[in-house]
Every structure is written in structure tokens, then in C-alpha cells.
């Protein structure tokens, strides 16, 4: 019974041809590029911002707090709309070379995603930094380490261990949020699914397939982060395992 059913289904299959599979593949490449770039850039900015956020002087930490508060308190979709529609309205931008870059929807989306993930990552790293056990800092001070060395050798490595779990959630969250890129005409995975849906009027085929693609990406990320976590926490592993 099941093989007949599958064979019948495959015979009637007009949707998953080589061409549509290629469309999904191109969409997957766009999604992965977008998410990977925004995460890398976001993380690179989040580490210094998180350190600034822990500084006692309110004129230093205040602006960072405001930035994270605004970007964490509003939907990513609104941020994307403001940047995507807003960039064209900046006076004079259409004459500069920036226009060549920002005319493509990819870069406004990348900017919006980067700003968003950077805000969340900053708060994650800040949380990890302020929960550094006081004894570790005291010991570092007793060894005569200055602030920079303390940060580099003690605080940041130990914060990384505490942040990795929350950060892996943020990464998966970002992968899922990136689906809204399809709203500003980017053909990412979701965009490809929407195109294929409107061509064949087959919601289940188009969207369930893309859901499976996202699920595979999610499980790959979970696996990679479990490896990273094991690596970072290897000193806590029971002896002999």
C-alpha cells in the first residue's frame, strides 16, 4: 500500500522538478549568506558594546542601553521597513555610490538584521560578563593584571562559556527571523516558497518543503553549537569520559 501511494504521488508530481529544486537551493544560499553575515558582523560589534555597557559611567553605558532597549523592544519587521523604505528617502543618497549598494534589498535587510542581532547579543554577553564570579577578578587583580589583560584572559573567556547557550538560541532565532527578508522582495528560502506557491497554488507542497529545509538548518545549528559547548566546557567533563 505505501509504495503504491508514493509511486502515484511521484507520478503526479509536477511541482518538485529540477527547476523548482534549484529555486529552493538558490533561496537557501541567500538565507544562509544573510544569516551568516549578520551574525558575524553583529557578534563583532556586540563584544565591545557589551563591555561598554558594563562600564560604570552612565554617559558610556547609557547610549548602549538605549540602543539595545529600542532594538529589543520593537519588532524586527518594523526595523526592516524603516531601513528598507527609509534609505531611499535620505536626501542626496541617490547621487552617491551608497545608492548602488542600498538599491539592492539584500543590504538594507543585512543592515536591519545586523543591528537587531547585535542588540540581543550585546545583552547576552553583558549578562555573562556581569555574572563573572568576583573571586576570578580578585585573583586576576592579585596577579597584577591590568584591565585589558583581565578582560582578555579572564573575563571574556569565562563569559563566553556562560553566553554560548543563550547565543545558540539567538542564532536559531535569527535564522527563523530571516524569513521576513522575503517581504522586501529578497528571494530567500521563504521567498522561493512563496513564488512556487503562487505559481502552482499548492500551499502544502511549497510551505511544508520549505519548513523541512529550515528544520534541517536548525538541527545543523543545534548540532554545531552542542559541539562548541562541549569544547568550551571540556574542563567540567567528569574524569575518564
Amino acid at each position, binding site marked *: 500500500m505505501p509504495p503504491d501511494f508514493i509511486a502515484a504521488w511521484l507520478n503526479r508530481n509536477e511541482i518538485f522538478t529540477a527547476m523548482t529544486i534549484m529555486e529552493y537551493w538558490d533561496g537557501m544560499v541567500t538565507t544562509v549568506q544573510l544569516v551568516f553575515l549578520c551574525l558575524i558582523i553583529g557578534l563583532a560589534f556586540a563584544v565591545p558594546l557589551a563591555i561598554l555597557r558594563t562600564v560604570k559611567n552612565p554617559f558610556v553605558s547609557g547610549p548602549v542601553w538605549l540602543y539595545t532597549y529600542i532594538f529589543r523592544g*520593537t519588532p524586527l519587521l518594523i*526595523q526592516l521597513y524603516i531601513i528598507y523604505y527609509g534609505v531611499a*528617502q535620505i536626501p542626496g543618497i541617490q547621487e552617491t555610490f551608497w545608492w548602488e549598494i542600498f538599491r539592492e534589498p539584500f543590504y538594507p535587510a543585512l543592515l536591519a538584521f545586523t543591528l537587531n542581532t547585535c542588540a540581543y547579543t550585546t545583552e547576552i554577553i553583558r549578562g555573562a560578563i556581569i555574572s563573572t564570579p568576583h573571586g576570578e577578578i580578585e585573583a586576576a587583580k592579585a596577579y597584577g593584571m591590568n584591565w585589558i589583560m583581565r578582560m582578555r584572559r579572564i573575563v571574556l573567556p569565562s563569559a563566553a562559556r556562560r553566553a554560548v547557550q543563550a547565543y545558540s538560541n539567538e542564532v536559531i532565532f535569527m535564522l527563523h527571523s530571516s524569513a*521576513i527578508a522575503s517581504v522586501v522582495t529578497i528571494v530567500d528560502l521563504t521567498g522561493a516558497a512563496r513564488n512556487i506557491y503562487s505559481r502552482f497554488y499548492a500551499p502544502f507542497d511549497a510551505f511544508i518543503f520549505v519548513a523541512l529545509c529550515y528544520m534541517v538548518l536548525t538541527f545543523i545549528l543545534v548540532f554545531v553549537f552542542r559541539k562548541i559547548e562541549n569544547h568550551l566546557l571540556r574542563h567540567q567533563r567528569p574524569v575518564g569520559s
Partner: protein
Amino acid sequence: MFDLKGYGPALLNGAVVTVELAFLSLALALVLGLIGAAAKLSNSRVAVGIATTYTTLIRGVPDLVMMLLFYYGGQVCVNMLSDYIWDTYEVDFFFQFNPFISGVITIGLIFGAYMTETFRGAFLAVETGQIEAARAYGFSTWHTFRRVMVPQMLRHALPGIGNNWQVLLKTTALVSIIGLTDMVRVAEEAAKAERMPFHFFIPVAFVYLALTAGSELFIKWLDKRANAGVIQES
């Protein structure tokens, strides 16, 4: 003051739609979360399997994809059902699957999965001694649940519920993509028509900011109440 070019009332209506959507989805999510947590903590392997599949599936798929699937797929299902009913019973049955309903169902289902985890953790945090004591006093299962488990579980669940609510509130913006005229949709149309994106999106962003900030205060207050009588270690 701030000139909204006549879009003010529409934006206000949109904000009301957003809040309604958020509250209805929250109610659905809480119910699903309680059911899911009960299933995960039950002895039945089937129930555990179903609940685990549910939470795993939801956490692997983007919210927008789910929403598109339910909105477009839901209509196809309704059409097939109405065809079937017409063919067999000759009764005309039809309804339009609107964006609001699909939004509530999708967001409710998604956050139901997150609430399941929250409630599961919270139930596990209630000491077994409490349950044993209730049993010893002859409380029935339902009574133990209602009088002993829920009041104590709520204290542990509140921070999680609060976080989920904050994320849920921002997820409601996605329903504008499938055509619900919430404030995001109104702002988008206004911004396109007037060619003034900042003018319309920034006020909407501030409404969301006010909603999240207000909820934060409310959750803090609730948390304080739920923790009354618990000695806080500072």
C-alpha cells in the same frame, strides 16, 4: 504636533487589532502550554511522544513560514471541506479563512510550544513533598493540581511567561504580511502612499516600545505578588 495625514484613526484601530491579536494568541498559547506540559509530565508514552514532536516541530520552523502555511493551506482545507459537504449533503457551507484567525492560531500554536517548556519546568520546580503532603491529606488529583500545584507553579512560570509574552507581542507584527490591517499594515500603506517611511513607522515602533515597556512593569508587579511570602535571597 505630529501630523499623521489623516491616518491617525486607522493607525489607532490597527493598534487595537494588534493588542486583541496578542491577547487572544496568549490565551490559546497558555491553554496549549498547560496541555502540553501535562502531556510531557504524564506517564503515557503516546502523550509524551506527541507533545515532544509538537515542541520540536514548532521550534524548527520559522513563524512566518507557519503563518503562510496555515493561512493559505487553511483556506484550501476549508474549500475542500465545503466541496465535500456540498457533494454529500448538498448543504452550502463556506467561510473565508481570514488573516486574524490564522494569526491567532499560528501565534497560539508557536507560543504554546514555548509555554509547554515553561510550564513543564515550573511544575517540576514544585517540591514533591508538597504533592505528597496533599495526597496524605486525601486531596484528589484535581484538587492537588488546583490547590497545591498551580499556585506554587505560577511563581516559577511567571518569568518565562513574561519573556514569551514580550516575544509574542513583537511576533504579531508578522500578521500584517498575510494581510491583516494591524498598525504595521496601515503604517506601510501610509508610508508608501505619502512616501514618508520615517513619519509613519517610527510612531508605530514607539507604540510597540510602549507596549513592551508597559508589560515589563506589569510582569514585575505580578512577579512581586506571586513571590509574596517567599524570602528573597539578595
